[in-house]
């Protein structure tokens, strides 16, 4: 067991060194280049000398990803901060809603429409300015906003607030909200809650009536007739809508920070987000990523995959691809191939690191995402929006 642990750490160190070296080169190149660059990604051959043969560097989008790969790659990043329209730099979440984009910041809800930003705060009727989660009801078009001070239903200009004081909602600190038909689910600091918009009734799920370690829940998603709740210290709690039965998926290794036996279950009990798409459940933790196909679990770590960091704030699956918001950049994967978007510490540029099996390619991004500490992401058609601790980024599908 110790040997295994040692091996794991030595790998991490090795990869870290490689990435550092690569990063320094990347920075050197893009840094030099950025002096005379505009905001479009530059596709040109590198003049840089490169001694490291394991990582291919390129500026040519055609050089990355083999034809068979289903992985989308995004670029042409446009970044927004408090300097150009956002009420504040700290963005918690982002949601694409037709022609507009909704961004939850620490200073209120920012809405981007027709190239313009508009902010809504408690003055307009928001429950709290710290907007942590957003979902839009497909049925009604209502926007549901999970804030640090309650849940807000925003319906064409009208704000209606649900709090633990004026309703049956479990707790005012809402980390995640989703609309599931006529139901609205929230993951809160006081348990998960289910609101029936027809009967106007709340149901609360905590450690008292569900297999949770404690009532602290971070994420919730819906799929395959089930609701999945990311419960802090409780792994993933699964609720079958038909039977109203719960079951949980916890880390067989317990609370250890290392994954003793690979793919034996969710990588850790402290889960931070869940997302379901294409029959896969993706689970984010602070110790790696898990994927569940209904039978088998698979774990992914920064040392054995293209994952930017094991510290994952949020996961969002769209089709066959999952997007992970980590403290070291945004990663995306289809389970085999990986693309991670990072930003240089010293300038606005960065790169996309494409990992296909053992092959790694870097594509320079000028500029890159707004910040490496990524908290939220949403993808629709050819556009991706990323919420970071310093602004939001809009990327376009390159390939």
């Amino acid at each position, binding site marked *: 067991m110790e040997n295994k642990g040692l091996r794991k750490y030595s790998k991490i160190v090795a990869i870290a060194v490689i990435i550092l070296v690569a990063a320094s080169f990347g920075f050197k190149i893009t840094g030099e280049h950025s002096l005379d660059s505009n905001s479009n990604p530059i596709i040109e051959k590198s003049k840089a000398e490169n001694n490291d043969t394991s990582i291919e560097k390129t500026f040519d989008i055609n050089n990355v990803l083999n034809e068979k790969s289903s992985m989308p790659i995004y670029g042409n990043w446009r970044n927004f901060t408090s300097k150009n329209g956002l009420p504040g730099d700290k963005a918690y979440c982002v949601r694409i809603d037709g022609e507009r984009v909704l961004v939850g910041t620490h200073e209120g809800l920012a809405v981007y429409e027709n190239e313009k930003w508009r902010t809504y705060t408690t003055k307009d009727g928001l429950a709290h300015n710290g907007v942590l989660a957003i979902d839009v009801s497909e049925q009604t078009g*209502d926007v549901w906003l999970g804030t640090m001070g309650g849940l807000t239903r925003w319906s064409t200009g009208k704000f209606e607030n649900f709090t633990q004081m*004026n309703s049956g909602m479990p707790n005012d600190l809402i980390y995640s909200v989703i609309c599931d038909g006529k139901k609205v689910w929230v993951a809160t600091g006081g348990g998960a809650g289910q609101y029936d*918009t027809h009967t106007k009734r709340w149901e609360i799920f905590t450690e008292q009536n569900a297999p949770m370690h404690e009532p602290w829940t971070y994420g919730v998603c819906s799929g395959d007739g089930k609701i999945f709740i990311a419960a802090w210290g409780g792994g993933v709690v699964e609720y079958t809508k038909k039977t109203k039965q719960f079951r949980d998926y916890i880390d067989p290794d317990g609370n250890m920070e290392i994954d003793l036996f690979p793919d034996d279950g969710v990588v850790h009990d402290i889960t931070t987000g869940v997302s379901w798409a294409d029959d896969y459940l993706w689970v984010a933790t602070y110790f790696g990523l898990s994927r569940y196909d209904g039978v088998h679990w698979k774990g992914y770590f920064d040392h054995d995959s293209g994952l930017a960091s094991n510290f994952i704030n949020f996961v969002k699956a769209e089709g066959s691809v999952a997007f992970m918001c980590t403290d070291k950049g945004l990663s995306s994967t289809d389970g085999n191939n990986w693309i991670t978007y990072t930003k240089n510490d010293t300038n606005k540029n960065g790169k996309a690191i494409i990992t296909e099996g053992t092959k790694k390619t870097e594509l320079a991004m000028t500029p890159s995402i707004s910040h490496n500490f990524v908290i939220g992401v949403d993808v629709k058609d050819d556009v991706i929006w990323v919420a970071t601790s310093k602004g939001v980024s809009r990327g376009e599908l390159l390939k």
Partner: protein
Amino acid sequence: MKKSKILIIFGVIFVLGLIVYFPGRKAARSHVNYITAVDDHPLSCTSCHVYTSQNKWVSKMVNEDYYSPFNMVVSNDGSRLYVIAQDINELMVVDTENENVLNKINVGVHPHSVILNKSGKIAYVSNEWSDNVSVIDLVSSKVIDTLKTGNGPAGLALSSNEQFLYVVNVFGSDLSVIDLSTKEEIKRLTTGNNPTGTALSPDGKVLYVTSRRANMVPYGEPLISDLTIINDSTKTVAKYLGIESAYMMENVAFTPSGDLAMTTLIRPKNLITSIQVERGWMMNHGIAIIEQKEEGRVVQLLLDEPNAYYSDPFDIVISPDGKKAFVSSSGVDYISVISIDSIRTILAESSPKMLKSFSNNLGISSRFVIKRISTGANPKGLTLSPDGKRLYVAEQLEDKIAVINTESLETIGSINLGGPLRITVARQGRRLFNNAGHTFQNQYACYTCHPDNHEDGLVYNMAGKDMGRNVTNTQSLREIGGTAPFKWNGKNQSVYKQDGMRFSAILTRTEPFNHDDLDALVAYIVTGIKHPPNLMYNPDGELTESQIRGKEIYNRSVDNLGIAIPENNRCITCHPPPLYTDLKMADVSTLSDTDDPILFDTPHLHNIFSSAPYLHDGRAETLEEIWTIYGEDDKHGHVNDLTKMQLNDLIDYLKSLRSPLYDDDKSEVQHGTYIKSN
């Protein structure tokens, strides 16, 4: 000898009679004086003990099953009138030429509205107390389908392509969108508070839904009621149009050209101390006009006049030529006829400031109201013949349909639906309840603050003393017969006193009801007003698991820590079934600085889910707030040990409470009154 014997017997009987008569009469007098709070009410035992009796047989004897026509629609060829007979749960088919009833079709409980599809072959009837819509084949006069809706289906409309049915749910405050091909509700959209009326714009692009209650705000903040505008193609809410200082928007109509939408409304003065009725200081009645163009204005105009009020405007219809609008002023038995061109002139000539001022002006109506046509008791639904030449008026408390010539503006006929000819005491009481004639200058009826015999969700400063003090939340009048005393301060030991002398001095500010009218009004209030079923939270008397847990909390005598809860601080002590009140006064520590020191009359809890806001001054917008915000000191029940989940269970249980009427299988509901089985 024989004679003398007889004389003696008669003598004894006579003496005995005297002995019984005088003290008996004295006792009866003091009893009646106590009940009526006056010393001159006639000693008529029947007025209380017969007309307010809920005994099955007595009630059957003294009451009748009236029809109470409510809403209606005319067939495409104008030959048939389809009338909702609300109190007998039927749709009546009326021949407009021969003015007689051809057929009666049974529908659900307490039907509200009826519409026809474009072909005129199918009718849809919303059954407000059944939570469904009856689909009727008018050729065979049969109900061919029943569509499930939200809670309290009222107004109806078909989508422009007739593939979807929109159902306004008055209790649920939402709109059900039903796919007529699958007969399934595909979505439910949140509307304004307590909505009823709806209309699709002539171009079929938007659906308007009115609301009758204002959005909930703390007392003192401006009143706003929402008109919900729905996009017909996306079936989503396009806008909530806030109508300021108004509520009770019963119905809405569009001009044929679609340039204007018009809705009826009331402008209450609940934020102003009710120190006088003169000069429109209590209630104003009018319409809102919504321009259907970009940046279109919303203008409110009063139908009232300086010394005459046209209370409780209910329905509005617009003639096919777009020249006239007709409003049923149901509280004064009039149809107000409006010249729409005059309104267009007012809109064209007036600045925004002027228009704002018009919304509070009693003189403006003389510029656009061209006639007031008197009708039978309580005109409600209106409908125009396809050629626009005839206006039909549902006279709810007359069981008749008035026919008005829309050119001469004269009443040209009256269709008798064949209801009972006898006007019972309770029926007379219901007429009084709905008529503003007993308020100074007809400014408001009992119904105005108690729509649907319930409550209007507002908090008033009734100013029993001084001004600005003692604001109180309107209370429901449903099934209050056994819940004396009345008023929040419990000062009225009977409905007689509640509606007696002081009532006229402080509230109606005109001559008090005479004894007969007061008897009738009391008979109606005590026997004629029943709760709707609680279909949302307790449809069949079977409690959910959460409600059962809540009931245990409600009945508990020890808290979560096993510590005994003082008896006077248990839910069940002050709110015991079946009425969920002990009829006593209590201090729940909710007295505010602006209240005179009083104890509160413990209210009953039937259908409490529908009585927001809560507490005497309406400070609690939801049941939760009673304990999360205003129950911190544990004086209104011992609750602070409860987990959030337990509080939810308790509230689930409270919301399940309904009239005992529906719990008792043997009890039967008689229309216009209700009776308990023996």
